[in-house]
């Protein structure tokens, strides 16, 4: 039971990362690697602020702002300086490695004696594990509702159209550069928030905790889309959140079955590669079956 609770809570905290990756990968149609730097950035900023005595809520909000700035940097590189988006993200990610070390002052910052968002919240009848679950659920719900609202507004619709058809949206008077920057800003703010929460739940921030986060985000997005559908934007948001939880469950199961934790990233990479090639493999398989039955 404890394992189920901690799996779902981890899924919820990482769901913010998944929503962030969804915004760049699906809405803007950009594979944004900034994520690998903005996730630990969020953790580093939050940890540093908490150890300096800041309130956990303040720490999380400032972590978000830091993530947003990282997104703006990538946006500036790819729109104004015309660096391909993939490379722009890699540049920001590498730069953030140094920035994160500077913020923390060392490679690992423990949060053992500090108040965190999870330790200051006392909900009657809930133990520590359930508290993380409850807070995670509330935050994810709030973020999902805000995203649903934002992407339904004129501005949000314009960002979605930018990813879908930049010619069309320019012909309708929207500056696509600004829309790309806004999308990256929002995405990385959420990713940093996820980092800030994960650091508080794990009890430390580490400069290496960003490695592989883009793949984890992609895995959540794709698993969610395959299992729970993509009918509408609302449906997609829910799918991505559930996808993040399912991803954590899959990881928990394979670890229980005895897979060495060191092989986790290899396993995740194979999972995502398979999921991304699914449409092609499916088409091949259907063609093969038609030919066999003929």
């Amino acid at each position, binding site marked *: 039971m404890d394992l189920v609770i901690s799996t779902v809570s981890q899924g919820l905290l990482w769901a913010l990362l998944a929503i962030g990756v969804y915004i760049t990968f699906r809405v803007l149609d950009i594979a944004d690697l900034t994520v690998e730097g903005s996730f630990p950035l969020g953790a580093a900023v939050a940890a540093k602020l908490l150890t300096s005595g800041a309130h956990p809520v303040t720490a999380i909000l400032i972590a978000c702002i830091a993530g947003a700035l990282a997104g703006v940097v990538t946006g500036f590189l790819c729109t104004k300086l015309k660096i391909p988006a993939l490379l722009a993200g890699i540049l920001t990610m590498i730069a953030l490695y140094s920035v994160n070390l500077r913020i923390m002052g060392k490679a690992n910052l423990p949060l053992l004696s500090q108040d965190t968002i999870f330790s200051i919240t006392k909900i009657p009848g809930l133990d520590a594990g359930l508290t993380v679950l409850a807070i995670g659920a509330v935050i994810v719900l709030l973020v999902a509702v805000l995203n649903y609202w*934002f992407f*339904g*507004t*004129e*501005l*949000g*619709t*314009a960002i*979605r*159209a930018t990813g*879908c*058809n930049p*010619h*069309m*949206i*320019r*012909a*309708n*008077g*929207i*500056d*696509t550069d600004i829309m790309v920057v806004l999308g990256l800003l929002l995405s990385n703010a959420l990713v940093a928030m996820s980092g800030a929460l994960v650091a508080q739940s794990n009890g430390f921030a580490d400069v290496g905790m960003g490695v592989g986060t883009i793949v984890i985000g992609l895995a959540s997005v794709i698993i969610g889309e395959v299992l729970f559908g993509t009918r509408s934007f609302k449906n997609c948001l829910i799918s991505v959140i559930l996808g993040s939880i399912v991803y954590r469950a899959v990881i928990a199961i394979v670890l229980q079955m005895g897979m060495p934790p060191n092989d986790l990233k290899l396993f995740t990479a194979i999972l995502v590669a398979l999921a991304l090639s699914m449409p092609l493999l499916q088409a091949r398989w259907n063609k093969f079956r038609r030919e066999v039955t003929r």
Partner: protein
Amino acid sequence: MLTIKEISKTFNPNTITEKLALHDVSLHLAPGDFVTVIGGNGAGKSTLMNCVAGTYPVDEGSIEIAGTDITKWPEHRRAKFIGRVFQDPMMGTAANMQIEENLAIAARRGKRPTLRWSSTAKDRDHYRELLAGLHLGLEDRLTSKVGLLSGGQRQALTLLMATMAEPKLLLLDEHTAALDPKTAEKVLSLTREIVSRQHLTTLMITHNMRDALKFGNRLIMMYGGQILFDIPEEKKKHLEVKDLLAMFEQAAGSELVSDSLLLS
């Protein structure tokens, strides 16, 4: 309404693929003018239109719309004045988004997007009314994704989107070339209906000389990056396809006709 003064455009200057696409082109459209543009491949028709729309900057010359010099404006800013329908039916609409969302974007062409919800119940009634005018049954499919529509339906929708926030200038870049003849005819008659109802100043490129003669009140023919001739309404009324060919032969040299002009 539109004043183009001596614009020139060269692609890939100082390289082996250098191409002079427009050479000192000047053109003036009075309000309500509906000008059809013909010419062979590489004549500069699409380049002219893209320079007006701001897809590429011009090397020299100036472009004015409704008295405003827009030569240095980026593409998205010019959209305030210009409605466009592209040759590719996929280009004018966002496929992954609903018909309603596409219309909401077009209804606010040229305005800064705000944090208001993109369409209200009142907007939707208005969209339904406009869609009913297309006679395609789209008024009952507001929440369908545009990607589910046929090429002809998408082109009709793009035409509606280009004109719903009344443009000072409508640019049609061979907007029926990718459609089957019957659908093309429908979209063309819809074009005529909308243009005449709203008295839109329109520039329409076509590969089809019969359409070029049938539609609009003026015809220009382009060749080698220049306007070869500009035929006013009275003269255009009495022309036939063979007259156009003869005029082209005389102006450009007979041996060029079969190569550079697609006959239809």
